[in-house]
């Protein structure tokens, strides 16, 4: 005779104590998060609603108008473009090399290139494909209207570190695709396209969505590369924040920078609000 269900499912006291003690181990991390994320957030929220010593919504309203709004939209467009293109191209590259002899070389290079950004990256591209860049002059690209200092130029430069980042994120997922699944699909009459449509991509979906969000976030927050390359030619929110903080445009509008930062947090939150249900849905078969 089996034991009553209530007895069998009763919590084990020892295990329960262990679990409660487990929280203690997270205390340093929680303290770190409170200081590094919490404190700036409080300052940011406080500053956003203060102008010349009085409580007001003017900073927030101003951050959603004119050049600031254009910069916000520009950043979202650039980040979304880089996220989608970077994920698609990165997945193709990863799939092409995952089972090849180039695999280790590409993964090592990706590890380096994914972390190669900022001013050195901007300089490398300016020296290569800028107005007086080596390739631009050799190929005479300037005569054909080529310019690196616009939306698509910046997209190209951001892809330089975004594609390797995708390779690093999706390669383990591609490794997890079992050859039997492909063969079983073929055996059931599927074409290669149908295999990817019904099995490959759905299995990879959680990783792909993760890569899209990661790329969106890294492009959205990038500053140094854009600042060195395009200055204010391409409207981006991070450049506007820098300008407002340094009083480059209007003195006394420093707190608009805090409002713009709050706008960025809200946009990042919206992206996560879209991402999480999609991720849950794509990974429902894992639970």
């Amino acid at each position, binding site marked *: 005779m089996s034991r009553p269900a209530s007895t069998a499912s009763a919590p084990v006291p020892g295990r329960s104590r262990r679990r409660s003690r487990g929280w203690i181990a997270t205390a340093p991390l929680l303290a770190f998060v409170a200081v590094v994320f919490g404190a700036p957030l409080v300052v940011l929220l406080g500053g956003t609603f203060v102008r010349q010593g009085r409580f007001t919504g003017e900073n927030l309203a101003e951050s959603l108008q004119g050049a600031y709004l254009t910069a916000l939209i520009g950043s979202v467009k650039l980040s979304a473009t880089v996220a989608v293109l970077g994920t698609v191209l990165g997945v193709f590259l990863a799939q092409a090399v995952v089972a090849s002899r180039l695999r280790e070389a590409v993964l090592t290079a990706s590890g380096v290139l994914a972390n190669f950004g900022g001013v050195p990256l901007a300089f490398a591209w300016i020296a290569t494909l800028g107005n007086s860049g080596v390739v631009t002059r050799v190929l005479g690209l300037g005569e054909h209207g080529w310019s690196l200092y616009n939306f698509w130029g910046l997209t190209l430069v951001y892809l330089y570190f975004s594609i390797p980042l995708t390779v690093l994120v999706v390669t383990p997922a591609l490794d997890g695709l079992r050859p039997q*699944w492909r*063969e079983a699909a073929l055996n059931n*009459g599927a074409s290669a396209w149908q295999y990817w449509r019904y099995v490959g991509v759905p299995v990879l979906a959680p990783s792909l969505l993760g890569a899209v969000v990661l790329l969106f976030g890294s492009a959205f927050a990038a500053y140094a590369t854009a600042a060195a390359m395009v200055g204010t030619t391409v409207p981006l929110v991070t450049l506007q924040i820098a300008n407002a903080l340094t009083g480059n445009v209007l003195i006394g509008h420093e707190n608009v920078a805090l409002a713009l930062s709050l706008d960025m947090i809200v946009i990042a939150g919206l992206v996560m609000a879209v991402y999480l249900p999609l991720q849950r849905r794509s990974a429902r078969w894992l639970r």
Partner: protein
Amino acid sequence: MTTPVTGATGEAVTEAATGARVELRGLHRRFGGTVALDGLDLSIEPGELLALLGPSGCGKTTALRCVAGFEHPDEGAVLIDGRDITGVPANRRDAGMVFQSYSLFPNLNARDNVAFGLRVRKVAAARRHARAQELLELVGLPSVGERYPHQLSGGQQQRVALARALALEPRVLLLDEPLSALDAKVRSALREEIRRLQLSLGITTIFVTHDQEEALSVADRVAVLRAGRLEQIADPATLYDRPATPFVAEFVGTMNRVPGAASGDRVAVLGRTLPVDGPPAHGPVEVLVRPEAVIVTPSAEGTATVVASSFRGSTARLRVQLADGGELLADVPGHDSVRLAPGVTVTVTLVDRPVLVSEPRRSP
């Protein structure tokens, strides 16, 4: 040491067979410097269950994959009902396949896995779901349709895989060691289930296994492969009782090697002279003898001694030391195990029937 195996199932192939005739003609396949198939010829009758048996690397899986279209032979042809399908892509062959393990699509539940081929063929959702349910019932899993593969046991997963392989009503079923990842009890039950289904559907089936017990218990015929070539093809009883070569004799079941002296078509062994089964031989040989062909009798004048006894119910397996120091295994009726206990002196001889002989093995 292997355990004794039962003979053929004795089950006849159903007359309502709908399976196709499968022929492999002179298949050659190399992987770099390794020869996987070396001129393999096989013919499988419609509705027959043929087991491909052999040690690792003998080419049995490669042969199966050539039929499935996942491997392409360097030379030779694969024919189904006389039609050469060697160049036909895998997704256009009339063959369902069950893989060794973990082949269910993890993102689809059991019902959608079974219905996958129908979905690819654009069968309406209602029809394909009904058909999937029918097939799940056929394999004894009527209520797992909504479960994902990781929520199923290994045996259930293989049943679902079997249902999926049958969904498009193929005329050939290919089983690539489908039971190898399962525990003994599930393995035995599923083996019988596969045979029952195969007989009721009349589908031509090729069953790859390295487990001789599995092969002998389910197959109409067993093809033993060695180094990419066919060593012997026969029904299970013949394969066991009349192995064509020493390799088959030792690979299928347990076999003793007893020193003897051959003279043409006769061989002297353990005090008897027996006919040689196979080409004439001369000089010192080793005679291949099954444990059940060894006769052990208690005798005070005997020169052999029982050194171990293992009771197995209806039989007992004895380990007997001969006068020359050599040992052999003998199966005797279970009730004789008491009078043939370890330490008892015995005489040993062989059943009077043709025996296989082999060159003496070199000492290591």
